[in-house]
């Protein structure tokens, strides 16, 4: 593993966890698709800022992009507040317009400028280490050296590492600080917004704070991993973690961890020695694979666990029904007729196979006894269960 490998992975891990942190709250607050909207509108902000600065490396571009993200949020909410369209439609109306204006401006006026939509959507993490932060002096490395697999030395000055590692590192710290500082408030505003408002917290302030974080994070991350992957990193790890735990703190931790894992695994899956394909896509693929595994096998919330639980409830309910039926008719005149296995079909509308299986399960649990000629008798625990269900005790 070369230094370059390490540096790209470090960038990916930091980016992924920085995205996952605000993503937790997006998923919990049902704002998941706001990340989609923001990450598309960024293009518009970048193009506008470029018209002002005419410099692709200007920090104003990031400012413009973050501003576009916030404008998107404000427009969506303004539109929603008119009550003329529903919130999901408002999202879907706003971001395509901004995105289209961005695309048209690029194709109309910025031909030949190295700013293309593919780059915005896909990013180029493998080239990120070649843009280095150097103090005093000038970096000589460029993307052409990517094939050599190592980082070029710099001419004079101190090499502080890849620029995007610094950018994303700072964003990660900002996100972490925000969440730690306002943990209690965020928790309250997320799970019970009206209580938060009643207690005098300002849920809307937190909401916009969160949206600013999402915008900044999306802007910082799209440069390395592209805007679609920003959506993947913001939504998929938190959604996965949501299936694993019921505690907010654990969910945040799991999300960051899973996201970081996506970074490392995604990098190696896309490595020229493996599939030789694009890193951002393979990170999303890994995230998707993790999500699918958890979706199926999560202990409490997974699909299989849910299905098993529903099945179990179905049998439990059927056994209880059987016990109640027997209880209602035992010691009555028609008990001989009612409390027989072949009568269940008529009375409880069970088909014979189902009835036999319920009887077998109830017998195994000791709720009933199957006697000669298909007669069914309640045992003492069976009678207790029926009485308890009928609230006679």
């Amino acid at each position, binding site marked *: 593993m070369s230094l370059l490998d390490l540096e790209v992975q470090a960038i990916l891990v930091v980016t992924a966890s920085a995205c996952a942190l605000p993503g937790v709250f997006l998923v919990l607050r049902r*704002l998941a698709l706001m990340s989609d909207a923001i990450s598309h509108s960024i293009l518009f902000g970048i193009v506008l800022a470029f018209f002002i600065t005419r410099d692709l490396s200007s920090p104003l571009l990031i400012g413009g992009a973050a501003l576009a993200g916030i404008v998107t949020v404000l427009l969506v909410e303004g539109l929603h507040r008119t009550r003329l369209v529903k919130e999901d439609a408002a999202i*879907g109306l706003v971001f*395509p317009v901004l995105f289209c204006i961005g695309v048209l401006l690029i194709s109309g006026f910025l*031909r030949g400028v190295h700013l293309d939509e593919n780059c915005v959507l896909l990013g180029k993490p493998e080239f990120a280490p070649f843009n280095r932060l150097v103090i005093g002096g000038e970096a000589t490395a460029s993307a052409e050296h990517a094939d050599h697999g190592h980082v070029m030395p710099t001419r004079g000055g101190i090499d502080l590492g890849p620029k995007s590692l610094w950018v994303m590192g700072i964003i990660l710290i900002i996100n972490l600080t925000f969440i730690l500082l306002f943990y209690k408030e965020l928790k309250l505003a997320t799970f019970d917004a009206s209580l938060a408002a009643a207690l005098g917290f300002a849920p809307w302030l937190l909401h916009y704070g969160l949206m600013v974080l999402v915008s900044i994070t999306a802007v910082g991350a799209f440069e390395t991993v592209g805007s679609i992957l920003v959506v*993947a990193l913001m939504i998929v790890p938190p959604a996965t973690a949501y299936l694993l735990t019921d505690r907010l703190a654990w969910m945040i931790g799991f999300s960051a961890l899973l996201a970081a894992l996506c970074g490392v695994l995604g990098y190696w899956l896309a490595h020229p020695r493996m599939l*030789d*394909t694009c890193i951002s*896509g393979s990170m999303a693929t890994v995230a998707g694979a993790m999500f699918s595994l958890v979706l199926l096998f999560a202990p409490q919330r997974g*699909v299989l666990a849910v299905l098993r639980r529903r099945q179990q409830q179905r049998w439990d309910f059927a056994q209880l029904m059987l016990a109640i039926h027997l209880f209602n008719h035992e010691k009555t005149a028609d008990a001989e007729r009612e409390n027989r296995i072949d009568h269940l079909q008529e009375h409880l509308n069970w088909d014979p196979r189902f009835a036999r299986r319920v009887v077998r399960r109830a017998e195994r649990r000791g709720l009933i006894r199957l006697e000669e000629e298909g007669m069914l008798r309640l045992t003492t625990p069976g009678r207790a269960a029926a009485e308890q269900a009928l609230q006679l005790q």
Partner: protein
Amino acid sequence: MMTLADFFRPENYPLRVVVLGCGALGLVSGALGAFAVLRKQSLLGDAISHAALPGVALAFLLTQTKEPVFLLTGAALASWLGTLLVMVIVRYTRIKYDAALGVMLSVFFGVGLVVLTYIQNHSTKANQAGLRNFLFGQAGTLLLSDVIVIVELAALVLLVLALFWKEFKLLSFDPDYAATLGYPIQLLDVLLTTLLVIAIVTGLQAVGAVLMSALIIAPAAAARQWTDRLGVMVVLAGLFGATAGVAGGLLGDLLSVPPVALPTGPLVVLCVSAIVIFSLLLAPNRGLVWNGLREMARRRQLQLEAILDHLYQLSLQHESLDHGHPFAVVRSMAVGQGNVLRSLKELEARGWARRTGPSMWAITEAGLEEARRRRIVRQQE
């Protein structure tokens, strides 16, 4: 400037094909979008269009051709699978609809990117243009054969929509009631979603994945402002979509002066967005402008009433109605109730107040009666 006669000249044949294709596309996506928007599935279109990418890429990888039939089938299968997954996630876990859409959209798109880049790195046939076309479409290069496919699929989709009209209507407004009536609502749900998938997948090659969602949502959102009837809404949405498609296609041709070539897809979206903005502002009843005007009139009415009431209160302190009250007094009573002088003049015009001297005001007999009447009305309310 192009005239209608120019449009039908032989050399404009390609343009006519493009316009026809965009129009048909707008028509069918608008009509289906009406259902998506009403069912709060607006963003399903966005997710479906992104989820098509792995289908397109895998179809290419397996067949090694760019035959639209294979690519469209692949796209439809992938989108369909994705939509089904969203349904499963929402049904069996506590993950909400929006997060499920986000997961599906981004993961499918990511997988698509992986396959596509893999193809580009390992095959000589593919080129970079493939992804660009998928994302942004290439309406300007639609051929007659493409347009025939679009029109055929559009006709099919609209036919099914007409056949199941009653069922889809019930499904959109009251699925629980539909279920109690014995309709197979899950099957109907899948059928309606399948129609949406077909519409989106046909639109992909014209306007691209990123913008297809706008073509689903925007015409329907605009149509919603004009009517409360589903039938009218669907027809209007189809018309808006078709209009935007035609206008975008024409604009793309008009504005593209070589070497600048403006992509048609974004122009179509901007056209349909213009229709949305117009509808939001000016649609009768629901329009924001009318709402604003109504709001202003109401506020004016309340201000007038308040000033009249203040004059009434003042008049109670004195025996005679001729006793004038300084303007400053009235104003100090009416803080935050708009322009007091303007309201007084308005009251004077209606004969409910009069001037008793410079800057002195009093209520009239008629005004007294009016103020009493309104007090009673307020009490009753």
